[in-house]
């Protein structure tokens, strides 16, 4: 178990180094930063002095090592567009994105799993057929279109919910939250539905397919033959066996939710990291882009580690215990 965690952590470090390398390479794609920073009339000597003061004359690997060293301490430099430390900008925006992503993921799980179980058990009921057909819409409609439809219906026509922004936020320590105010909660509804709908339908269809698969297995047949109640069979035996693939997909999708939040945040002008990133792209604000890339990479690595650890709790076959295994 501990060896497994250490191995996974080392793999995570390797992944982060690769992501960091790509992020670092961004700086070299947009031309010479010295040319951007100095006025056009600067002399060759000025350029050379600037280059030396920034450390740009040093070998590539040394520069990369310096970048990594700073990045580990959370120092990604100064935003070219806003002139403030990138880490401070991201820290301001992170709560908005995480709240949106977590509410969207919770919505997807809390609605998607029961719907998947229902449609798996009542395969032929008209309501499950309806859900299954309706879920195709969620899977196939692009996120921004769903967002625009929701704004049209609930903000423009009905006027029930705000069409943009986060509403009022409250500071809880360094974390600005919209979950504690009525306007913050109202503002969260449309973006989280927009962001979570695809995941919801995906999880529903996945749970349904897994349920159908598991219900055909011998141990479910044997559970029926032992006279267990349907409730015990469906929820105690079948559902738990569908969880491993559900956890895998949910983990990957949580990363995707945070990354896809870019589109939803743009549609709803949600003041999160995604919006910051889009604006950074428009202004070629490389430090912000590089930091965003590293942060998203880091989130993916952490989620994958958490998913692997969850497997251990769900599936005893993965808890390799050599002292007990294979006894006759």
């Amino acid at each position, binding site marked *: 178990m501990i060896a497994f965690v250490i191995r996974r952590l080392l793999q995570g470090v390797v992944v982060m180094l690769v992501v960091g390398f790509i992020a670092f390479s961004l700086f070299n794609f947009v031309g010479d930063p010295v040319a951007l920073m100095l006025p056009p009339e600067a002399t060759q000597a000025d350029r050379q002095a600037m280059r030396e003061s920034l450390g740009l004359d040093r070998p590539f690997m040394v520069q990369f090592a310096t970048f990594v060293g700073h990045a580990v301490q959370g120092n990604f430099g100064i935003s070219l567009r806003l002139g403030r430390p990138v880490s401070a900008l991201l820290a301001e925006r992170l709560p908005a994105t995480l709240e949106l992503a977590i509410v969207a993921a919770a919505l997807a799980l809390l609605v998607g799993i029961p719907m998947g179980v229902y449609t798996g058990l009542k395969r032929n009921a008209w309501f499950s057929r309806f859900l299954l057909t309706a879920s195709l819409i969620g899977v196939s409609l692009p996120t921004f279109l769903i967002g625009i439809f929701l704004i049209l219906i609930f903000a423009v026509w009905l006027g029930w919910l705000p069409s943009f922004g986060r509403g009022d936020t409250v500071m809880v320590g360094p974390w600005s939250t919209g979950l504690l105010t009525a306007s913050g909660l109202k503002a969260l509804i449309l973006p989280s539905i927009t962001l979570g709908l695809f995941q919801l339908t995906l999880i529903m269809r996945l749970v349904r397919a897994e349920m159908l698969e598991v219900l055909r297995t*011998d141990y479910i047949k044997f559970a029926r033959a032992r006279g267990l109640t349907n409730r015990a069979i469906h929820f105690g035996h079948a559902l738990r066996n569908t969880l491993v693939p559900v956890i895998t997909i949910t983990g990957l999708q949580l990363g995707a939710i945070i990354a896809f939040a870019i589109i939803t945040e743009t549609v709803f002008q949600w003041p999160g990291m995604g919006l910051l990133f889009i604006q950074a792209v428009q202004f070629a604000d490389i430090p912000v882009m590089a930091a965003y890339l590293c942060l998203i990479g880091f989130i993916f690595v952490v989620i994958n580690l958490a998913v692997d650890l969850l497997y251990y709790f769900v599936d005893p076959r993965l808890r390799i215990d050599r002292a007990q295994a294979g006894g006759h």
Partner: protein
Amino acid sequence: MSEASRPLLEVRNLRVEFTTRRGTLTAIDDVSLAIAPGEVLGVVGESGAGKSITGSAIIGLIEPPGRIAGGEILLDGQRIDNLPAEAMRRIRGRQIGAIFQDPLTSLNPLYTVGRQLVETIQTHLAMNAAQAREHAVGLLKEVGIPAAERRIDHYPHQFSGGMRQRVVIALALCANPRLVIADEPTTALDVSIQAQIIQLLKRLCREHGTAVMLVTHDMGVIAETADRVAVMYAGRLVEVGPVQEVIHQPRHPYTEGLMASIPAIGQDVEKLPQIEGSMPRLDAIPKGCAFNPRCPKAFARCREERPELMAAGATCAACWLHAG
């Protein structure tokens, strides 16, 4: 039935049909059999003869699109084939236990064997958790699991195939049912383990007075274990009788073929006799006796008229050779 007492289980004219896109297939056709309390009835036949479906029909677990299309099933003289789902559930495990072919896949991999035992015990018997656990440990000891107190908290993957089948037997017997349907209980096991499991099943059922319907295609197992044997072919019973009679003096040509194809030790044969051809598919069962195209003794009547079971010596056989 030769027994004076009422049979524990009686199947009368059972018919099971499968509705498919290409029409209705009859998987079980007019099967009648009875099992006395404590009796071991062997059911033999080739794959697809309908042995397992008969077992599933008795415990009310035929998977759609299959359904019981006719006949009745009686337990203690009470019909159970038309019971509501909830009433039938209470009979499964409590009155009729079941053991399936593959012990490797019969147990839920995510729960300890103890949890699965306790869950089943508490479903059927009024016991609290501690009593149920104690009962479960006792059962595991009874089926020959060493260090049962410790092993009860292990997961199925920590047991070998033979040990898992012992756990499955403990699960099937945990509410002390009066009948156990054992569907090929040893087929998936190593040959060296098979005899142990059969002996265990036989001993436990004798001790508890449990009747057994032993579905298998292994005549050796039948010869060793069963009191009576029923031979199935293409969804019908072709011969029923006491096990020694059926083995040594089979009356139906199909049973004769089955017995001839079992090699005997010390018998030096060049080639093992086999029944020519193969069992007909369900949608192509021939007119008359289903066995007639493969039967060496078939005559005109066999191709026209379907024989019912009729007395033939000490057994009953569905064969025109024994008519009149």
